[in-house]
């Protein structure tokens, strides 16, 4: 590639509109030719300077002036002016263009007639035959002129029809274009309207979504609160059930006590029982009424009962205090037996006690309560009935 060929593609090279092959060739040339490379750089500078140039502002009223001038000229006149000029020129040229052979024929006939007259003027005057020929020629010319005028009239009429048809087609096309433009405008307006509504709807949806999210958050919090409340209520229910059960047990126990109390309550029973347990808070007292024979069986009943340990202890203590005076005989009997007043045991324990004595009795310490009861029963059995 030489310098001239390279310069021919400077613009394309700067606009990056050259083929890759040409670009490579030009790059190679620029490496080899410092002049072209410098020219290219200068061209870049010049184009940049040109592109930096701002446009000259039009005078403020120029657009309005142009518009008013255009609008002052009727559109029909503006359009018809060249059309009229065209039609005028055509009317002058139409016969020559449309019927050139007719004009040529008329001209040749006229030239022939003129030469004929000229020849005869020179030769001394026309003959009768010449005059007849001349008349025939004149008639032919007239006939041709008539044909020409008819043809011209037909042409004018046809051209008028064609022009009218063309104008109607043009106006129809223009009307269609106007309708098309109006439809386009309506479509654009509708599209803009729809876009605007869509944006509003999107904004509303966004707002509602935010409200919904807030409501959902509140709902979640409420559900969590409800779940914790349910859990708490379950635990409370369990505690309540336990408390109720405890209360019921206490009530049952109190009812049991109350039944015992009721059976021994002198206020609610006409027959005053011989043994009364009177509870005043934590203090229980025992009241007896009647003889010892009436009292002791009741006391034994309470002492042997496991339902009311407090009553049983009190009854046992009362029995011991009441039966102590009769214990001498039983203790003496025990002494005789060598059991130091301990009750005789049955079975292997009694046999062992009897054989080895009291030394080993400590290993089989009997229940104190049952022992005391056995001793008291024995005292009560061995006493003299009626003895107080």
């Amino acid at each position, binding site marked *: 590639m030489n310098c001239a060929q390279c*310069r021919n593609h400077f613009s394309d090279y700067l606009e990056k509109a050259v083929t890759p092959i040409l670009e490579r060739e030009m790059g190679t040339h620029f490496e080899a030719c410092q002049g072209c490379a410098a020219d290219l750089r200068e061209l870049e*500078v010049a184009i940049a*300077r040109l592109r930096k140039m701002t446009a000259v502002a039009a*005078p403020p009223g*120029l657009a309005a002036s142009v518009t008013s001038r255009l609008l002052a000229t009727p559109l029909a006149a503006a359009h018809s002016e060249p059309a009229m000029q065209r039609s005028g020129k055509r009317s002058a040229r139409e016969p020559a263009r449309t019927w050139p052979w007719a004009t040529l024929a008329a001209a040749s006939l006229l030239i022939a007639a003129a030469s004929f007259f000229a020849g005869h003027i020179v030769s001394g005057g026309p003959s009768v035959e010449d005059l007849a020929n001349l008349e025939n020629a004149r008639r032919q010319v007239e006939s041709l002129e008539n044909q020409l005028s008819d043809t011209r009239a037909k042409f004018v009429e046809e051209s008028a029809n064609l022009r009218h048809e063309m104008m109607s087609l*043009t106006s129809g096309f*223009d*009307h269609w274009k106007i309708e098309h433009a109006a439809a386009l405008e309506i479509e*654009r307006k509708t599209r803009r309207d729809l876009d605007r509504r869509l944006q509003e709807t999107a904004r509303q949806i966004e707002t509602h979504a935010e409200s919904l999210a807030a409501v959902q958050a509140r709902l979640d919090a409420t559900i969590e609160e409800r779940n914790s409340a349910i859990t708490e209520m379950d635990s409370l229910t369990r505690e309540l059930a336990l408390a109720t059960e405890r209360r019921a047990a206490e009530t049952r126990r109190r009812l049991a006590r109350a039944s015992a109390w009721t059976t021994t309550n002198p206020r609610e029973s006409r027959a005053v029982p011989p043994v009364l347990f009177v509870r005043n808070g934590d203090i229980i007292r025992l009241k007896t009424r009647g003889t010892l024979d009436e009292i002791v069986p009741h006391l034994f009943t309470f002492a042997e009962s496991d339902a009311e340990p407090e009553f049983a202890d009190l009854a046992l203590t009362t029995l011991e205090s009441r039966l102590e005076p009769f214990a001498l005989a039983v203790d003496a009997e025990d002494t005789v037996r060598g059991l130091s007043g301990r009750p005789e045991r049955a079975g292997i324990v009694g046999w062992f006690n009897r054989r080895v004595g009291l030394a080993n009795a400590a290993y089989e310490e009997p229940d104190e309560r049952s022992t005391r009861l056995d001793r008291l029963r024995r005292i009560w059995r061995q006493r003299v009935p009626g003895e107080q």
Partner: protein
Amino acid sequence: MKMNRMRDRGEPGAGPGDPATTTSLALRALDDTDCVVLARSGNETAIEELVRRYTPGVYNLQYRLLGTREAAEDATQETFMRAYRNLTRFDPRRVFKAWLYAIAWNYARDELRRRKRRSGIPEARPAGQRAPPTPSAADDPCDYRTAAPSETVVRKEEEEWVHRALHRLRPQERAVLLLREFEGLSYEDLARLFACRVGTVKSRLNRARLALKRVMAKLRPDWFS
């Protein structure tokens, strides 16, 4: 980039806040072809819209081609009048902008020829315009060697130099440069405008750019140093 330049010049795509415009927003949304159809049917607003869109561009082109504001104003008026008269001949398949600029270029070319016939010189120097400063014009306030003004003044002065360099080119070179660089016409539109092939347009544009570079290098060698 090109659209920005066009918007700066107030051409199609100018903002709706332009106080000089009275056309409706609906018309501004229509493209040129639809506006032309409406204008042909007698819609005055469409005519006004077309004039509003293209007055700045046509005026700028005529000013760059003819050199004076008065001539540019007359040429703009005449361009629009010719376009208005021939509006029915406009083929809607063509680009209206290219068609309008073709009318503008034809008028400017005829005007330049008339000037040449009248004065015998290629182009009259623009009235009220100073001659390009010579190296001896040390007292010229526009002399780039003596002036030290603000940035705006420097920029205006540089633009003035570019304008002068443009006026050293032949009219057709100037036209192809302006229509390509400023009005953004495609090679196809330029080929139809100058009645030649696309390849010829490219060659002319390349020659015009090289010629502008040469003239600029003569006028302002410091730009290329």
